[in-house]
């Protein structure tokens, strides 16, 4: 990069640094503090060293088993989400109308689920999927397909996955659409002259141009599905049993439900470290793929 070195730029960054530090570092220090202590209540704490961490990372203990169950469940969920939303999002982006009023109308309708409060997303799907009052639940049962998301694990998972696809596929689609719009028409004309097939146009022109936005899409979707809380909490409350208890739901149960501060704090730190490590991997890949193509970053 040819940006001039100027350390006085720190003054411009200082307010952001201050507010994010206030919101991130002080709370994390509280968490670190709790994570090495145990309590018998009455605000009396005593030193517990790394005890909670040992228990958490050992799958044979109750706490560790619970943590790893939630972790695998969450990884499985994030994997399914990405496997569905990324191809579907690309497909939807490729199907966007080309111009006219239909583009604006389609964009507005597509973006609508993204602006609905997350608990309302849960409510919408609760109302939609219930076997007694919901169109989906009632309809499926009327067709003779056994479906009950509050009692049956498979139904609950399918409902949550479909809900998330409903909620977030538009984000992937809009990102891909922005990538597609940046392709000059000349590329397509050249492809037409060369007699390139639809598939060849996709793999050699469209997909490479979408690479950067797709990385952002995968990053955002992975991270957000990895910390999903509100929607499944409203829809299933983590049930049936623990079948849809993802990491954040488990953590809130532990911290605010049972008030097991030491265990919850240790879990918070490990959870946060996993997120940080994954975030670093994505960030490295992203900045790396950006530096290969110096014309990137030109906007407006």
């Amino acid at each position: 990069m040819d940006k001039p070195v100027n350390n006085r730029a720190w003054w411009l960054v200082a307010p952001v640094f201050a507010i994010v530090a206030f919101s991130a570092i002080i709370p994390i220090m509280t968490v670190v503090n709790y994570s090495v202590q145990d309590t018998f209540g009455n605000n009396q704490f005593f030193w517990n060293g790394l005890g909670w961490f040992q228990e958490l990372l050992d799958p044979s203990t109750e706490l560790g088993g619970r943590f790893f169950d939630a972790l695998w469940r969450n990884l499985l969920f994030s994997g399914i989400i990405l496997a569905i939303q990324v191809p579907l999002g690309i497909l939807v982006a490729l199907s966007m109308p080309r111009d006219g009023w239909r583009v604006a109308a389609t964009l507005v309708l597509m973006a609508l689920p993204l602006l609905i409060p997350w608990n309302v997303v849960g409510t919408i799907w609760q109302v939609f999927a219930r076997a007694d009052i919901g169109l989906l639940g009632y309809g499926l049962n009327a067709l003779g397909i056994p479906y009950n998301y509050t009692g049956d694990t498979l139904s609950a998972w399918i409902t949550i996955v479909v809900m998330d696809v409903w909620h977030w596929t538009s984000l992937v689609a809009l990102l891909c659409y922005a990538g597609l719009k940046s392709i000059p028409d000349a590329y397509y004309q050249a492809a037409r002259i060369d007699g390139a097939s639809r598939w060849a146009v996709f793999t050699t022109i469209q997909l490479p141009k979408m690479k950067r936005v797709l990385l952002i899409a995968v990053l955002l979707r992975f991270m957000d599905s990895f910390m999903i809380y509100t929607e499944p909490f409203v829809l299933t409350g983590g049930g049936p049993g623990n079948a849809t208890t993802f990491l954040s739901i488990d953590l809130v149960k532990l911290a605010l439900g049972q008030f097991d501060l030491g265990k919850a704090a240790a879990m918070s730190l490990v959870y946060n470290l996993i997120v940080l490590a994954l975030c670093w991997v994505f960030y490295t890949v992203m900045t790396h793929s950006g530096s290969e193509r110096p014309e990137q970053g030109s906007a407006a």
Partner: protein
Amino acid sequence: MSPNTRGGAFIMALYLIFLMLPIYWLVNMSLKTNFEINTTVSLWPQAITFEHYIKIFTDSSWYSGYINSLTYVVLNTIISISLALPAAYAFSRYSFVGDKHLFFWLLSNRMAPPAVFALPFFNLYSAIGLFDTPWAVALAHCLFNVPLAVWILEGFMSGVPREIDETAAIDGYSFPRFFVKIFMPLIASGIGVAAFFCFMFSWVELLLARTLTATNAKPIAVTMTRTVSAAGMDWGLLAAAGVLTIIPGALVIWFVRNYIAKGFALGRV
């Protein structure tokens, strides 16, 4: 743009139907009486009723929820954008000690699970006396909105040629005057997009908003949990409240519709 296939319109129609069906059902429910909801499943209300909407607009414990939510969302958007503007400029124009690490650290806060912060935020904002005020939620949401705003604005600012800064300096503009008079109008669409995203993520978040408020600043999302009563769920009222939470989002989307696609690419296409 892309050479559209003939199946495109069909796929898009299917996708939009899939998106609209659950929303249609919610609207349908909100216009039915609870008796009808519990006794029959019908595709449209047999007797349209506005009783649920009337209840929300006349009961202050209901409509104050909307006011509280909008208060902290607007506060958060203003704080996030005004702090992020100079920082994004610094990131897009200069390199300085620790800039890459700082940028990553900021970004990592956008990715941090709110569940991790719920309990410590509760302690922190209780200790400084902001608990149960809109300020607590507005400041807490800065955790993920400020980094996001910096990220988006940096993308848009990097698209403005540096020669403009230099020309303005030669013409005798002071930095603040240059920034407000010349630079900000150039990235106006970027500011709009960043504000849209701050609004969006603050509006849809529930976990922190719920943890940091009790009675005075209770957001609408929490008020909605009150529809469970001894007599069972008040589905009609819940659905009506849900429909009303969709409207502000729909309005905001309408205003930024021409920038949506670009904004979702965070200014980096």
